[in-house]
């Protein structure tokens, strides 16, 4: 390759090259050897795992009742892992009645103490896995160890602790999370935090309200969002205050929550929110109105159908097209708005719920009755052409506003 007089000669190239080749070949051999060994080892491990799982499953009632003492399986790492996995899987799908038996087994065998100790004293991934396992136990005594980990300098550990608390799924686990959140001492991914809080507050969403009242800015938005998901009819008055919040995200969450409140309380507020200056607040209000059983909502939805935002229009159309009232009557009101885009959105939704033909048949009569609806007839013709013969429609009707 290089000539005899090359400068590379001076640095002992032959020596370097020989070793480089040796190193590369040795590396290849080692990698191939490692791959083969790892495959063989994994195959053996999974065979053993499967065999022991079957054996322990056969003894499961005795293990659970304590007839087979914990010491018989806890000292064997593989058996211990299998029993813990079975227990945690069972806890995840168990109801209130079944849970105590599984928890008793965890406690009596010492598995729970072992995990609590690991969550407090171990490092790195071992600690994180212990935190998650503790969360899956749903045991109240796991909460303090999980809370301690919220102060860890490692973000991964904090996230594992938040996930663990989320898995506990009790208001008792929500309180420390909210305390940390309110004091802005919890730095984890917002998605993780919201999921955890959602799980923890499901049984008692009212614990969010005092925290909401104490916070501002992004933290307030996060708590309001959880409340929006979990709101119950009993939270009516608190939600009314949120609807007047200066933060649009909070108002949107209030609209979301009001869908679950009593209609006589929520309808007037949602009607106001449907005229909010932020489009996503209006959209949330329209969505909430779609699930509300109130006779007055049709007027709000008709106004929303003429909204400048297409998402709001489409959602209003979606709701109107699926209302129990006569489609012809609603169509007449839509035509009377003299808004071609509102009409297009509504007809499109009618078509999607297979009510278009009947509605279009009544359109001619409506055009004749409603003053100033001449333009609407043209739109109806275009829409009719769209739906009747899709292949013949022109580009003029699409992408033009």
């Amino acid at each position, binding site marked *: 390759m290089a000539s005899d007089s090359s400068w590379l000669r001076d640095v002992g190239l032959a020596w370097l090259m020989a070793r480089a080749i040796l190193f590369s070949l040795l590396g290849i051999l080692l990698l191939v050897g490692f791959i083969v060994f*790892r495959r063989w080892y994994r195959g053996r491990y999974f065979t053993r795992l499967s065999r022991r799982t079957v054996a322990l499953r056969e003894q499961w009632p005795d293990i659970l009742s304590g007839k087979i003492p914990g010491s018989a399986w806890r000292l064997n790492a593989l058996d211990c892992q299998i029993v813990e996995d079975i227990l945690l899987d069972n806890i995840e799908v168990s109801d209130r009645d079944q849970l105590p038996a599984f928890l008793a087994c965890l406690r009596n065998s010492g598995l729970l103490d072992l995990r609590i100790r690991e969550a407090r004293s171990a490092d790195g991934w071992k600690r994180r896995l212990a935190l998650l396992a503790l969360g899956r136990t749903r045991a109240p005594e796991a909460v303090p160890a999980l809370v301690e980990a919220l102060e860890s300098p490692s973000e991964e550990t904090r996230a594992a602790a938040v996930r663990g608390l989320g898995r506990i799924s009790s208001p008792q686990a929500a309180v420390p999370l909210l305390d940390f959140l309110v004091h802005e001492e919890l730095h984890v*991914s917002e998605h993780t935090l919201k999921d955890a809080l959602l799980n923890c507050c499901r049984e008692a969403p009212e614990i969010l309200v005092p925290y909401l009242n104490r916070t501002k800015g992004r933290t307030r938005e996060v708590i309001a969002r959880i409340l929006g998901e979990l709101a119950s009819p009993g939270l009516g008055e608190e939600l009314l205050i949120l609807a007047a919040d200066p933060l649009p995200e909070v108002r949107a969450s209030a609209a979301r929550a009001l869908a679950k409140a009593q209609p006589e309380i929520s309808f007037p507020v949602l009607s106001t929110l449907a005229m909010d200056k932020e489009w996503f607040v209006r959209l949330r209000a329209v969505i909430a109105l779609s699930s509300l059983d109130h006779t007055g909502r049709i007027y709000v939805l008709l106004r929303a159908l003429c909204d400048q935002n297409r998402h709001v229009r489409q959602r209003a159309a979606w709701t109107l097209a699926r209302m129990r009232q006569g489609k012809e009557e609603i169509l007449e009101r839509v035509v009377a708005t003299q808004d071609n885009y509102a009409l*297009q959105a509504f007809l499109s939704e009618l078509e999607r719920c297979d009510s278009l033909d009947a509605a279009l048949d009544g359109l001619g009569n409506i055009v004749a009755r409603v003053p100033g609806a001449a333009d609407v007839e043209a739109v109806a013709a275009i829409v009719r052409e769209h739906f009747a013969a899709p292949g013949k429609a022109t580009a003029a009707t699409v992408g033009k506003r």
Partner: protein
Amino acid sequence: MLRFLEISNDSLFVYYLISNLFNLALLVVAIYQNSLHRHRLASRRPLGLKSSPFTPPISLLVPARNEELCIVANVGSLLRLDYPELEVIVVNDASSDQTLPALRKSFGLHRAPILYVAEIPTAPVTAIYRSLAHPQLLVLDKQSAGCKADAINAGINAASSPYVCVVDADSILEKDSLSRIMAGIISEPERVVAVGGIVRILNGSKVEGAELKEVRLPRTHIEILQVVEYLRAFLVGREAWAAFNLLPIISGAFGIFRRDLLLKIGGFRADAVGEDFDLIVRLHRYLHDHDIDYHINFVADPTCWTEAPSDYRSLARQRARWHKGLLDTLWSARNMLFRKRYGRVGWVILPYMWLFECLAPLLELLGYTTIVLAAVLGCLSQQFFLAFLLFGYAFATLISVGSVLLEEMTYRRYGSWREVAWLLIYCFFEHVPYRQLTMFWRLRGLWEYLRGDLSWHQVKRTGASTSTPASIAE
């Protein structure tokens, strides 16, 4: 002359040494990153995203041009993906075959008067269709602008979600791939602006109705070599570069992006030859120009299976096109080189791409020429030459074997001993003679680009993604 040959040969040695050391460093970083990712996966449950009300919606963009062989089955498969808030937008880019009629028939499409605002200018959209049976499906029919980028841009305009995911019409996404790729965003939604997933080769696998039933290695040499090449490129290269926030490319076959950012940079560049590479470089530029703290991520477990060329002619065309795209993008980003404003992007990844990717075939050709000349003129040390060849070959093979090791340590898609043995055997052929073949194809790409031939030669499809006809929606 002798002096020139001496300098040339020495330079080639140093070039090759640096290139291999770079690759070795990337392998080490990738092994570390992969093990870190595996640990993270153990503490997260991507499937938990499915049940969360906080999971952001995604618009899946599927540009389709003359895809009648696979479009119905593949769209059906996309509609069945496990993701809570999904909108599928198929953009029919003036197909001359039965792509649109097949979609209309199979999914009950009807023209819908939907407002379409061309925030990114595209060729005119002539019709928008919605499906009665699948409300989340939207089909745009547009005139051709002669490039895939324009079709994707139309999809971006029509998308209503904050994130858009671009998928090739002939590719198959695994059911949980969207949940898994979103995990790369959800951990840091403020910083992560785009995420790439891994693209694997579908050829040889068992597919039924656009769903992957069994992963198998392809049968032909050229396809298996591509499997090794893809493993090295994705599991080593992308994983390692992403660790330093220097990911130069997210594959056009599978990537997710923040829609608002795509709108700000004007979407995919319609006249770019390699629109995916070009987009990521422009994203880097925009985010640096605006001093935005960001991360462009790669996650190796969400998988997209795609059909790779199975004959030499198609592969040659594909590689030539890729190289044209590489040069085109690097040339348009030349003013980012060694500029303080662009930080590591300007000082590390772009120079690396120029030196070890774009100019590599030229430098290799130069090397082969000077070696032959030196041999003819009698100034070549044969002993050293052989040693150098052996070193280069062994070192590069080490990296390929390392990528198979990574696959084994992490995702193990090829389960049988026989398949792993074949993968390892083919690692020894990736650098001789496959590398030399690709070198010539890439040189052809360079030559075509310099001649101004930017045409997108169609790659022959065998319809591997639809081995069994689908009965979706019929």
